[in-house]
């Protein structure tokens, strides 16, 4: 049974994620067909029936639904999620009957690096802050320090992110003039948005780190180690942390996924040119193909994160056999 090993598991998991992605995108595909004629939406109410029909043909909307769906799925396999007729283009028929359009997936994929930078910095920062806090609290349970950490971490998950983001801009960019208000490009630009996004992960990871460390520290072998006179910080870092790692890693994964959702608002506030801001733009102009592309990538990222977390989980605890 072990012969199938990690590789087999990885392949199965990958297959599962692909099926998941297909399901989600199929749901998105059929949902999108419910919000009215995309061609009419592109051309506006003033366009003639003839123009609309021409664009519908060009968009493939005149085909039976199953043909459209098949094309959609096949396109997805080839990394083609269709064309936008709106983003960066305001009149599809502006060029002598040849409708202009652009592929959506490259437009959306171009935004990924910025989101990865922001998300990565956020999560790394959150881990660096949260782990020591959680361990600190766990080693002094029920003291004032523990209670403070507890309330602070709960406060972190209770705050409205964009509200906090605006306060950060006011304080650090305007009043103190330490950091740029918004934008993208230098390391200084990432600090405020990452700070705004990291509050929730810091809170959650601290909570989990604290409670799983508490569980671990209560176990007999730790008590025994203490009895042998091993210093408490060493106990925390070596003995307990290793065992407490699984719930912590799971939470880090969950929070990374939450950050992916969080960027939608935070990127807009900070003018951060990531996929989140693009999603908001696409929603605002009701650019259905572009929305599909952004959702595709966001779901792909989330599935990827889940996969990585599962593998980390397996690596940490080889005995755990997942379905």
């Amino acid at each position, binding site marked *: 049974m072990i012969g199938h090993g990690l590789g087999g598991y990885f392949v199965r998991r990958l297959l599962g994620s692909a099926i998941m992605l297909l399901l989600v995108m199929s749901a998105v595909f059929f949902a999108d067909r419910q919000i009215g004629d995309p061609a009419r*939406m592109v051309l506006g109410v*003033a366009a003639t029936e003839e123009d609309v029909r021409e664009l519908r043909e060009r968009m493939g909307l005149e085909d039976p639904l199953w043909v459209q769906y098949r094309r959609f799925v096949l396109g997805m396999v080839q990394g083609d999620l269709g064309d936008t007729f709106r983003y960066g*283009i305001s009149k599809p*028929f502006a060029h002598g009957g040849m409708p202009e359009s652009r592929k959506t997936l490259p437009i959306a994929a171009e935004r990924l690096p910025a989101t990865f930078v922001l998300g990565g910095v956020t999560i790394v920062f959150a881990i660096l802050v949260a782990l020591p806090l959680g361990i600190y609290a766990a080693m002094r349970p029920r003291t004032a320090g523990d209670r403070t950490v507890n309330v602070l971490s709960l406060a972190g998950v209770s705050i409205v992110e964009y509200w906090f983001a*605006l306060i950060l801009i006011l304080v650090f960019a305007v009043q103190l*003039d330490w950091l*740029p*208000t918004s934008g993208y490009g230098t390391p200084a630009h990432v600090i405020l948005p990452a700070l705004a996004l990291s509050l929730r992960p810091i809170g959650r990871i601290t909570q989990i780190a604290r409670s799983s460390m508490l569980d671990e520290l209560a176990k007999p072998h730790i008590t025994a180690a203490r009895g042998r006179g091993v210093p408490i910080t060493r106990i925390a870092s070596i003995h307990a942390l290793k065992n407490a790692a699984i719930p912590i890693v799971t939470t880090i994964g969950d929070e990374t996924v939450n950050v992916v959702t969080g960027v939608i608002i935070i990127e807009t506030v900070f003018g951060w*040119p990531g996929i989140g801001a693009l999603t908001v733009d696409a929603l605002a102009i009701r650019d259905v193909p572009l929305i599909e592309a952004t959702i595709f990538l966001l779901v792909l990222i989330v599935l990827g994160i889940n996969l990585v977390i599962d593998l980390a989980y397996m690596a940490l605890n080889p005995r755990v056999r997942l379905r």
Partner: protein
Amino acid sequence: MAGRNSRHALRAAVLGVLALAAGPAYALGGGGELVIVANQEPQSMQAQVTYKEVNGVGLRNVIEQLTRLDPRTNEVKPMLATRWEQVEPRVWHFELRDGVTFHDGTPFDAEAAAVSINWLWNPENNYSVREMMGPQITAEAVDAATVAVITAEPDPLLPRRIYLGGVTSAKQILEDPASHDVHPIGTGPYVFEEWKQGQYWTATANPDWWGNTAEDPYGEIFFDRLRIVWRPEPIVRAAMVESGEAQVAMFLTKEECGRFDAKDGIKCIVKGSDTFLQFRLDYHGAAPLLADPRFRKAIFTSIDWEGIRLNLMGLGEALQGQMLPSVATGFHDGIRQYPYDPAGARAIVDELKAGGADIPSVHVSTRLGSTPRNGEMVEAMGAMLTSVGIPNTVAVEEPGVFNPRAVSKPTPERAYAWLHVQANPLMDYGATFGAHFSCGGIVSVFCDPDFDARVAEAASMTGKERHEALRALVKEGHDRYVVAPVGLLQRAYGVPEGFAWEFGPDHRIVAVNMRMN
């Protein structure tokens, strides 16, 4: 604020060193990069977008037109055309400036100008700039330096109207029309560099700009580079100027403006615009009662227009119950803003109800981000309508929902009101009626063939006669409760202290009219 000053000093020093090191490539410039923070990203970079400043902020630095408006007098002045005359009632000849080239190196001549003009106003293309068009415009080359612009009907406003149409490379239009959407190639003082969607677009100073050597340039190049960024949050826009990240922050609120003026190092520039805020109630609603002048009067008098203007619109001037200010052709001095009379409005509603009428629900919508606090305004309007017994819904709609409707022609399904901004740089009711009050108008709210006929008649007139004819139509429109003007907007910009900027009511963000002292 010592910190900020020293920081600015440092910044200036660094820039100075950089400028020295690079050495001026041409005599002008040396002002470093100009960063403008707008409230929204351009939806495209087409030449037609230049007709409205908010849809393509800064595009006028790359794309020029045949004529321009003088910032001080608002008169039509030469730009790419040096002279023009009406050779026939329907034909105008424009004599073109010599030695101008597009940024792609192709020469600007009559042939190129004709291609560009025909492209812009082409009914096939159906660009929204057509809302500003009177009779259909076409163009053809007369000789190398003269282009003829022909209108379907006589159009006395043409030299002013032609100022709205940006001129771009004919080579691009003919050979690569797709890139016209995203890569503007004009003749302006700045050469388009790149549009990083979601982030910024940039342009660099044009050493070969005709204005560098011409006798009558409309400005001079001070800034070496141009960068346009966008932030939807007003506080972020303001903060960017405060922290020195940008030099021009668009559309501050009245209160922000006051704060900027009170603070060292930054200031607020306020200027009246040609943009007015209006409330329109469609005349062709599904509910028959919407066509009843009594009901329309009830709606128009249930809203406290002056209260909304003073308390919510912020910076702006009153309008006298009509869309354009007193300088406009056709202005009627005999009418006043619709009075606020909730008791009277309620009485009408009660009377209609007593007569067995079914009061329809009115939907009041506005577009996200079109002007500060429009959400509050529609909310106030909704509450005021409710208080006189008119059911309603209000909404701030995303551009994707609002825009297609805003350019729709009247249909019987339309039974809604909207609050929106409209620019009328022509300051002439002929143009306003054409867009808003005619059956074929691209943003029309009103359709009455008889009214249309009289508008068409007035549009071909000139002088006093035109004024009187339009004036009568203004009065009629007012009495039919079609459009309630809320106010003429003033736009406010946050800039650093020492920033000089000369601009007219059209509020074009033209870098050659700006400098940093």
